[in-house]
């Protein structure tokens, strides 16, 4: 097992840029995967957009910063951002320590009924393996 890949919950869906999504009806909870938090390193700062914003697929819903890296968070679904995890402002390390639990990032009410192009756990496992293959 490669580092950062020992936890890929079967119940979640995954984007190619390592955002997980838990969907119940049109309510989607988003966060960073175990692999991504491991790969990025210790998170120092998380910035999430204000609730109420309507997002398109691939639209930015925040940014995340470690001591040596920074990147944008992009939504894998279109919809309205309903809630953000305020604990991450003061405890960004939750992204590292509890990526599928306390490290969740935002809740989005999806605009569609659930037809997304996200990966299953098995497909994501293969994607991570490809990401780890030296170029």
């Amino acid at each position, binding site marked *: 097992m490669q580092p950062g890949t020992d936890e890929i919950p079967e119940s979640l869906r995954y984007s190619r840029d390592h955002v997980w999504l838990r969907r119940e009806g049109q309510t989607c909870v988003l966060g960073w995967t175990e692999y991504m938090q491991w790969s*990025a*390193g*210790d998170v120092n700062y998380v910035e999430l957009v204000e609730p109420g914003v309507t997002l398109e697929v691939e639209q930015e819903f925040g940014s995340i910063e*470690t001591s*040596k*890296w*920074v*990147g944008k968070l992009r939504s894998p679904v279109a919809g309205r951002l309903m809630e953000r995890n305020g604990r991450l402002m003061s405890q960004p390390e939750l992204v590292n320590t509890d990526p599928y639990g306390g490290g969740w990032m935002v809740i989005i009410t999806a605009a569609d009924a659930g037809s997304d192009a996200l990966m299953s756990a098995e497909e994501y496992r293969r994607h991570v393996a490809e990401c780890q293959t030296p170029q």
Partner: protein
Amino acid sequence: MIVSPDTVRLSTAAAIALGLRSGRLYRDAKVGCINLLMEDEEGCLGNCLYCGQAREVAQGPECRTLIRVQWPSYAVLEVVEAIRIAAERDPSIERVCVSALTTPDAPEHLVEIVKTIRDATALKVSALVTPTVFDATHLRKVAAAGVENITIAVDATTVELFHALRGRGARGPHEWQRYIKGVEDAVSAMGRAKGSVGVHAIIGLGESEQEAVQFMQLCYDMGARVHLFSFYPEENTALERRSQPPLESYRRMQLARHLIDTGKSWAGGMRFESGILVDFGVSEDELRGVVRAGAPFMTTGCSGCNRPYANETPAQAMQGLFRNYPFPPNTQDIRCIEAQLGMASRRQV
């Protein structure tokens, strides 16, 4: 036991490059130099007001942060083995730099660590030393141990600032004259011809541009090269609330340093108004060419040393606010730099 030469601290970037810590670098910056920091049970005897290792900040061996990041501790032999393996797979790693704290045993322990690295790898090795505890004899021993470069972090570029921030004014042990003599001793130990001696200078500690450039010239006249840092406020230090220097001012200092370093100009040929550099002593066309080449704005140091995101956060870098580029600036970066220098709009500096 937390003490060098048995253990050593690694910069976060170095720990990532060696695979000892997970993480990635913005824009896939490569790490050219593995930076090691010696440690001691008593901590550093220095008390520099901008430094996370200062005696009254670190309070013993505990390393909070230095140059923005944590420095995790490892056994020296583990680090050296990791360096050996990483250097075989990653050609961007060119060098190892061993930085000494101000401790009585530092000279002896640094030589031991340098020898351990030299025995295990073919990488170039640098030593960053403090003349407060490294005298001329020590420097000759460091040179004999096989380092390619010796660097001295003078940091503050005027005697007054040095005294206030590092010397008695800061309840610290360092003395300006001893540091300047240390540079001379290092040049004597390493030889003048190869440019093997470096001097760290931090821009933004309260000096004027004119004072900074005069200091640079002093170093070059002594046979040393200058490596520039842009002040970044370290948390928990006395200067944690001080602002970074204006970017346009830092860019001018980078340009001045580059022109002196490459022999294209000198401090006496530059013109200052109220301490601000207004004429670099070269033609506008030549200056524009130098800027567009991008080299002045890259990290300066021993060959290979690029210190990614040491003087700016990755978020600042993402906004085009790099201080020292850890790689050659691309076309978009050059546009940013030109704008920061006022060249894009006014077509002149």
